[in-house]
C-alpha cells in the first residue's frame, strides 16, 4: 500500500497515519508474544519436566521474578494437573516425539512449569490481542482497511471503538511488562552461553511508525544500516542499493537486480534439491543484498540501529536487559540477543501505542476527520514502500504503466535472513549464525532449532537446512 501511495504521490491524512501505526503496533504486540511463547519457547522449556515441579516453589519463583496478576500454589497445581492428565492420556498431540529430556535443556522443573503455564496464558492473550486488528481492520488475520491514500475504517473512529482498542492494547501491554519480559529475563539467565552463539555481521532496518509525513526522519523505530557490527557508526539507508540475487536460486537468469527491474520467473520443472548440481541452484528464495552485503533484518537489527543511534526509549531498555543478565553489549550479537531484542522492542512499541491512541483522540477532537486522501492514478509511475514488520525489513516496489501494474516485486524479511548464497558465494545471516553451534546430539539438533527459530522464519515454502542423507557433512558443519 505504501508503494502505491508513493507511486501516485499521495500524502495520507494524520488519522490514517495514526491508525496504520496502531494496527502495525498491534501486530508487534501480538506476533512477538506468539513467537516467544508458541514458536520459540519450547526450544528452551522442557514441558515434560514441568510435571515434576513443586507447585509451591513455582509460585514462589514467579512471585520472585515477575508481577504476573495470576499465580499462587493452587494455580500452578491446576496447570500441572492439566499437563499430567494430558501426558498420562498417552496422546501427546503437538508435544509428541520432541526433544524432551535433551541435555541442552537447562531450566529447573519449576521454571519449566512457570513457562508452560505462561505458554497457555499467552495462547488466550493473543486471541484477545488480535481483536485490536478487528476493530479498525474488520478481522485478523488478513485485516481489510488499507486503501490507497489512507484507511477505510472511518466508521470505527468513534469514542467507544477507540476506547475498546486502548483497553486491549493496555491489557496486552500489562502481559508484556509483567509476564513476557520477566520470563524472557528468567529463561535467559539460564542460557547466558547463548550470548556467544548465533551472531551475524551486518544489520539493516528500514524503520517504521512515522510520526509525521517526514520519512525516514520521523520514524519511531529508526532506519539505518550497521556495517560489520559498528554500532557507533549507524549509516543512513539508500534504497537504491537493494538488490536481489538469483544465481543460486531456481529462477531464470543470474544477474543481481534492483527490485524496480526485478523479475520473478521460476524454473519450469522439478528442480530437485541438489547442492552438487552443475549450476549450483538450490533454493526457491532469492538472496537480497544491501550494497552487495548480506544483512540481518528483524528485531535485532532494529534494536541495534536504535541503540547505536541512542534512541531515547530503546537504549535504556537494552541497558536494563544487559545489566540484569550480567553480560556485556557484545552479547547482543547472538541468538540470545536476537530473542531479547524481540522482547525489548515489543515493550517499547507497546508503550508508545498508548500515546498514539491519545494523539488520535486529540486529532479527532480538533475536528480533523479526514481518513483518506484523493489521488489520480498516473499513466506512468513507480513507487517504493519500506516497512519494518515484526519479522523485519519489508520492501515493496511497484512500476505503473498505462495506469496498471507493470512490475511488482517485494523483498521480504525471511529472504534477507535465510536466503541462499549469492553470485559471490556470500552466506545468508542464518548460515553464518549457525556456524560453530555446539551440538550435543547430532540426531537431535535442538541447538540448531534455537538459532533458526530465533529469526522467526517464514519460509515453510523453502527449507533446505539439513541434507537427510549426509550426516557426515552435517557433523562437519556442526564443529
Amino acid at each position, binding site marked *: 500500500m505504501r508503494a502505491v501511495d508513493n507511486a501516485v504521490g499521495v500524502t495520507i491524512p494524520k488519522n490514517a497515519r495514526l491508525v496504520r501505526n496502531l494496527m502495525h503496533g498491534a501486530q508487534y504486540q501480538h506476533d512477538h508474544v506468539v513467537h516467544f511463547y508458541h514458536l520459540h519457547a519450547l526450544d528452551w522449556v522442557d514441558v515434560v519436566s514441568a510435571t515434576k515441579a513443586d507447585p509451591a516453589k513455582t509460585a514462589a519463583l514467579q512471585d520472585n521474578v515477575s508481577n504476573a496478576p495470576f499465580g499462587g500454589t493452587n494455580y500452578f497445581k491446576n496447570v500441572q494437573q492439566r499437563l499430567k492428565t494430558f501426558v498420562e*492420556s498417552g496422546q501427546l*498431540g503437538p508435544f509428541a516425539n520432541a526433544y524432551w529430556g535433551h541435555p541442552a535443556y537447562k531450566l529447573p522443573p519449576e521454571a519449566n512449569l512457570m513457562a508452560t503455564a505462561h505458554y497457555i496464558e499467552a*495462547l488466550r492473550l493473543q486471541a484477545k490481542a488480535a481483536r485490536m486488528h478487528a476493530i479498525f481492520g474488520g478481522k485478523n488475520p488478513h485485516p481489510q482497511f488499507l486503501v490507497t491514500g489512507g484507511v477505510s475504517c472511518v466508521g470505527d473512529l468513534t469514542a467507544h471503538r477507540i476506547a475498546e482498542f486502548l483497553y486491549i492494547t493496555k491489557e496486552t501491554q500489562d502481559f508484556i511488562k509483567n509476564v513476557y519480559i520477566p520470563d524472557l529475563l528468567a529463561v535467559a539467565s539460564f542460557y547466558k552461553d547463548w550470548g556467544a552463539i548465533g551472531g551475524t555481521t551486518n544489520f539493516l532496518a528500514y524503520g517504521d511508525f512515522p510520526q509525521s509525513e517526514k520519512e525516514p526522519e520521523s520514524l519511531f523505530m529508526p532506519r539505518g544500516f550497521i556495517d560489520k557490527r559498528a554500532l557507533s557508526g549507524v549509516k543512513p539507508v539508500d534504497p537504491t542499493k537493494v538488490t536481489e540475487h538469483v544465481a543460486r536460486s531456481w529462477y531464470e537468469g543470474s544477474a543481481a537486480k534492483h527490485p524496480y527491474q526485478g523479475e520473478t520467473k521460476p524454473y519450469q520443472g522439478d528442480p530437485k534439491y541438489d547442492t552438487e548440481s552443475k549450476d549450483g541452484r538450490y533454493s526457491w528464495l532469492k538472496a537480497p543484498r544491501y550494497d552487495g552485503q548480506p544483512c540481518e533484518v528483524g528485531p535485532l537489527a532494529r534494536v541495534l540501529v536504535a541503540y547505536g543511534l541512542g534512541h531515547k526509549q530503546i537504549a535504556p531498555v537494552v541497558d536494563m536487559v544487559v545489566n540484569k543478565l550480567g553480560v556485556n553489549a557484545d552479547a547482543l550479537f547472538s541468538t540470545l540477543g536476537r530473542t531479547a531484542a524481540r522482547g525489548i522492542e515489543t515493550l517499547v512499541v507497546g508503550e508508545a501505542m498508548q500515546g498514539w491512541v491519545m494523539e488520535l483522540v486529540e486529532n479527532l477532537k480538533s475536528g480533523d476527520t479526514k481518513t483518506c486522501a484523493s489521488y489520480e492514478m498516473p499513466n506512468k509511475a513507480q513507487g517504493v514502500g519500506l516497512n519494518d514488520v515484526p519479522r523485519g525489513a519489508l520492501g515493496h516496489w511497484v512500476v505503473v504503466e498505462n495506469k496498471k501494474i507493470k512490475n511488482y516485486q517485494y523483498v521480504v524479511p525471511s529472504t534477507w535472513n535465510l536466503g541462499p548464497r549469492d553470485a559471490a558465494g556470500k552466506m545468508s545471516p542464518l548460515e553464518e549464525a549457525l556456524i560453530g553451534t555446539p551440538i550435543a546430539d547430532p540426531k537431535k539438533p535442538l541447538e540448531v532449532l534455537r538459532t533458526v527459530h530465533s529469526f522467526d522464519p517464514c519460509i515453510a515454502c523453502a527449507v533446505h537446512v539439513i541434507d537427510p542423507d549426509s550426516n557426515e557433512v552435517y557433523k562437519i558443519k556442526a564443529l
Partner: protein
Amino acid sequence: MDKQERAFYEKLEGKGVSRRDFMKFCTFLTATMGLSSSFVPKVAEVFAQPAQRPPVIYLHFGECTGCTEAVLRSMYPWIDQLVLEILSIEYHETIMAASGHQAEEQLRAAVQKYKGKFLCVVEGAIATKFNGAYGKVAGHSFLQIAKDVCPQAAGVICIGGCSAYGNLPSAKPNPGGYKGVGEVLGIKTVNIAGCPPNPINFVGTVVNYLLLGKLPALDNLGRPLFAYGQTIHDNCARRGHFENEEFVTEFGSEEAALGYCLYKVGCRGPETYNNCGIVKFNSGTSWPVEAGHPCIGCSQPEFWDKFTPFYEEL
C-alpha cells in the same frame, strides 16, 4: 463434460431431473451419510475429558498459515482447550514441538495408528505440475503426501480457500499447477472457505462431527450450509443503503462516513456466500464491510482471478 456424461444428464432431464438437482441430491447423500464415528467420543464426553481424544492430522501445503493463525483466535472453546482437552492434534507443522525427522516420524506413526479414524485437516493447495515438484515437505511432494494421508482419514476438512479450491497459489499464471485437494484427489471434502475463514465456522464443523458423529450438510461447493447458506449481501447491515441507492463512490468521502453501500467501490457481497456479517470475526468484533472495506469475495472459488481488480464495480 464428455459424451457419456452428457448423455446421462440428458436422460435425467428427460425424466424431469435437472443436472443441478442431481448434484444437489449427491451432495445431500454424501453429507448425511455420516463418516466413521468409531473414534468420536460419546456426546457427554466430548467436552469433559474423553478417554480417547479424536485424532486430527493437520497438513500444510501451498499456503500462508493464515488459516492456522485464524484457528488460534478461537474463543469458547479456546485453542488450549481444543489442543489439550478436546482433540488430539497428532501433526501440525506450526504448533508441534517436534521438527525434522522426528516430526515426519510422528506423521507416519499417527497415520498408521489411527488409519480410518482420524480427521484430516488440510491447509493449502497442491502443486500438480512437474509431478508436484513445486511443493515438498521433507523431500515428499504435497501431491504424494495428500495421496498417502487423505484417503486414510475418516474425513477430510479443507480449511481455507487454498485447500478447498486452489485459491491464491492457483491464481494466474499458476506456474506450479496448484489445485484444491478435492479436485486433485477426486474426493469429496468439507470446504471451510475463506481467506482465512472465520475460525467459528471451522470449530463449528468439528463440533458437529464430535457431537453428532457426522459432518454438517454442505452446499454444492462443499461448504457447510450453516455458515455459507446465504450471501454476504443478504445479511449486510448496509443493505438498506443499497435498496435506497445510497452508494460510496470514493473512500474518505462523506458517503463513506455515512456508512453507505460499498457496491460501487467493488463489494463482492452479492456473489459471495458466507456468514461474516452475522457472526463477525474475532469473537464478534467486526468484519471488513463494518471497517468500511468492500467484501473481496474470499470464500468463493477462484476469487483472485474472477473478482480482481477488487475496487471496481461488479
